[in-house]
């Protein structure tokens, strides 16, 4: 066989790879922001009085959750220019991630809203809290706490999913890795190392989320 592993190419490409990590985080952050906006709007529409709007949201969630992201991003890649959105691959990737994550966010946020008992709000008013205080302390904070684990888990999933955006050559870690691979032909070394860069990213995110949770949500439930 006579193949010797050579990780020096990875070492030389480290600056480019680290910029790729930044690209991945930026992509995930932008995608998650869009996903949250779609999520909040979707939850509002999901409980609207118009039956067609409710059906539209349910249909959207089911279609997105039961088809692969790769097919979604290919579809959007060709569909967006048709509706006049001529975007670069990275912007297309952000929209695809946002649409995909949005469907999951709708389900998550809806669960959080439903977790707040109506009696809690009434109790808040009975204690003489303002409308703003009731929303902030009785609805928003407990709801956020309830959905925090699934929401942050979803963010990490989205970050990992963003690697698929390399298929439309968006700027992120995997596409940087593919470029280095085609320059050096060191496929295994490059992808092996990049896998651990992703692992580092998800561990850092998990750590960060745990710190935030400890800081803001560590009050007793009852």
């Amino acid at each position, binding site marked *: 066989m006579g193949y010797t592993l050579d990780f020096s190419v990875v070492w030389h490409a480290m600056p480019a790879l680290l910029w790729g990590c930044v690209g991945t985080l930026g992509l995930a952050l932008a995608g998650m922001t869009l996903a949250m906006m779609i999520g909040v709007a979707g939850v509002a529409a999901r409980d609207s009085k118009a039956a067609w709007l409710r059906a539209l949201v349910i249909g959207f969630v089911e*279609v997105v959750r*039961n088809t692969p*992201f790769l097919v979604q991003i*290919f579809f959007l890649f060709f569909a967006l220019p048709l509706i006049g959105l001529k975007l670069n691959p990275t912007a297309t990737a952000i929209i695809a991630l946002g649409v995909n994550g949005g469907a999951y966010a709708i389900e998550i946020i809806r669960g959080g809203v439903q977790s707040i008992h109506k009696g809690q709000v009434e109790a808040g008013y009975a204690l003489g809290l303002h409308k703003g205080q009731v929303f902030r302390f009785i609805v928003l904070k407990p709801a956020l706490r309830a959905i925090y684990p699934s929401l942050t888990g979803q963010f990490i999933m989205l970050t990992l*999913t963003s690697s698929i955006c390399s298929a439309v050559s968006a700027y992120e870690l995997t596409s940087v890795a593919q470029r280095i691979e085609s320059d050096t032909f060191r496929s295994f070394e490059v992808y092996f190392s990049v896998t651990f860069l992703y*692992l580092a990213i998800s561990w850092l995110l*998990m750590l960060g989320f745990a710190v935030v949770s400890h800081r803001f949500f560590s009050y007793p439930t009852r």
Partner: protein
Amino acid sequence: MAPHFGLPEFGFLLRGLQWTVLLTLVAFVGGCTAGLAVALLRTCGHKGVEWITRIYIGVFQGTPLLLQLFVVYYGLALTGLKLDAFVAVAIGFTVNASAFLGEIWRGAIQAVPRGQTEAAMALGLHYSSRMRDIVLPQAIRISLPATIGYLVQLIKGTSLAAIVGFIELARAGQIVSNQTFQPLLVFGVVGAMYFILCWPLSWWGSRMEARLALASQR
């Protein structure tokens, strides 16, 4: 003149769909077997073994499936074995499935009330009989919705085999799209095929979850 999307193209997509189903089945069966081993090791009570399986699961959950496929695909190529693309990606998906199913079943095994294990021990049952006859039958029931959820994820995940060049449904879609210049129609049909495959499973899984939740309330 490019061909239009007609019956031959549709047939090509259907053959891709066959490969998607086959790849899913192979990975799921392989993943169930290896996943059971992972789940049992993860709950075996030996600290060192539990830590190793925990790291194993953590690595697969913390890295993108696409990169896992790349590593397995190119890693196997390095060993000098001349493997078919199907075998290589099937191994990749199987390893991934073993970690995810292992974690799902770990949770299910630990969700079986502790008293069940204690009662089995009091009756003098061995580890193998305790697991096979007492714990696992109950754990399987608990884990079924999540297992079906993972199966849906696996079907969708097999589309990534397209990126390493294996011709399953998504890759077939890319090829037909390039031939016919009708990307929206082609990827619409491809998406519909995945949907027809996944949606009944998702529906079944969430119905079962609702039933289990109802049963545990009583």
